[in-house]
């Protein structure tokens, strides 16, 4: 059994354990297979480290955060978001900046707009409407992940 096949079997079983007997069946000379699996595992580990820091937790608790390639900076007029992968700049109004500040603070998707409405006077509900639409845009563009 190749190293790769052995690993896949262990992963499939769900216990992630390779018994000594199984390990003995693996071909130690199968370096190519070992390297391939190692690379794949490192990719998975890197992805899951990110997930465990953000996405998985976020999915469970509805928490949002900025995507890893997004930088935020406050400005006099509001703020800017810089997406380093496409090198795109998004200029934000004060409302937009307030939404992103809440995201950075770890707000939950379900109550972010309500939180903003508590903080700022919004008798007409216009700000809440804008914030809600803007949050949807941020998610759609992949700038905020849940």
């Amino acid at each position, binding site marked *: 059994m190749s190293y790769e096949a052995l690993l896949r079997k262990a992963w499939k079983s769900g216990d992630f354990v390779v018994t000594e007997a199984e390990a003995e069946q693996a071909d130690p000379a199968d370096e190519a297979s070992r390297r391939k699996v190692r690379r794949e595992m490192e990719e998975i580990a890197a992805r899951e480290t990110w997930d465990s820091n953000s996405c998985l937790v976020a999915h469970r608790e509805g928490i949002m955060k900025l995507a890893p390639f997004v930088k935020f900076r406050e*400005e006099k*007029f*509001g703020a800017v978001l810089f997406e380093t992968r496409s090198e795109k700049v998004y*200029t*934000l109004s004060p409302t937009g900046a307030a939404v992103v500040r809440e995201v950075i603070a770890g707000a939950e998707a379900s109550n972010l707009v309500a939180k903003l409405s508590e903080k700022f006077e919004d008798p007409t509900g216009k700000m809440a409407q804008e914030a809600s639409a803007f949050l949807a845009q941020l998610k759609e563009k992949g700038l905020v992940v849940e």
Partner: protein
Amino acid sequence: MTTETAAAPDQTGTSDLAAPLYVAWQITNECNLACLHCIEESGPGKAFKDELTTEQAYHIIDQLVKSEVPYVSFSGGEPMVRPDFFGMVERITKGGVGLKIETNGHYLTPENCKRFKDLGVKAVQVSLDGASTASFNKMRVHGRFEEALNGIKNLREAGVPIEINFVPAKFNIKEIGAAVDLAHQIGAYSFYTGKLMFTGNAVRTWGITAPDEADYPQFFATLKEKTEEYKGRMRVYFHEMGLLDELRYRLENPAALFIILPNGKVKLINALPFTCGDLKTDTLGQVWKQFQTAWQSPRVGAFIERLAEDPTIVSRLHQWEEVGTK
């Protein structure tokens, strides 16, 4: 760098920003290669005599961090030949600035690529002018196609995001389709190209490097097809504007970015000879203010208009002229 507006005020210009959004920093003019088209005229033994010391470079990094500049690129010359290169990378990434490295790919050992990954480098852009050994090695004097490809493989194995940059020349322009395919095959997420510019070494080598103008329509048509073909898998960026059009556009719409030269002087844009400060003596904040006024200098506008009549004046690219008041 494009600008989009999101929940935005009516108008936001660079003068509204507290600091640049992108700083392109040429950290040395030294290079292991001597490319035919090099805009910086870099090469072996071409380091400036007054390049920034490590201490001076670190002082600039600390200001970039403090000013929350979101994105910085280290280029050259070949940035990786600077002895304190990794010290600079570590200091700037630990400060939270997104960093891109622009390299010819000849120093991308597995160890160096792993260090990039560990330090959180956002992207490494490798220049790959051609889809074949013959065209790459012709363009990149002393360069080795296989070595650049091997470096890219090491980046991929380390999990570092890869960008590819391609400069067209007479002898590689018809390889553009194959070059885009190759970029995707080797794991790039972005591909950049545009027209060869009549600046730097290209001024002297124009006769052997400049593509036939009649080849450009097919070049851009292929790029449009490839943009569609790789949609969702790899971004293909290309600029159809020539140098003059680009500069006229920038005069009206300066981007929120400037160029730091290896000696700390700051240029408005690479293709103009104008500087607006010196980070050996000025603070980043001062230079940013000077940058705003420098773009409004009549000398800048006049130079661009003279360029329309005489394209050869860009050969003065490295005869810097200070504009913008302190």
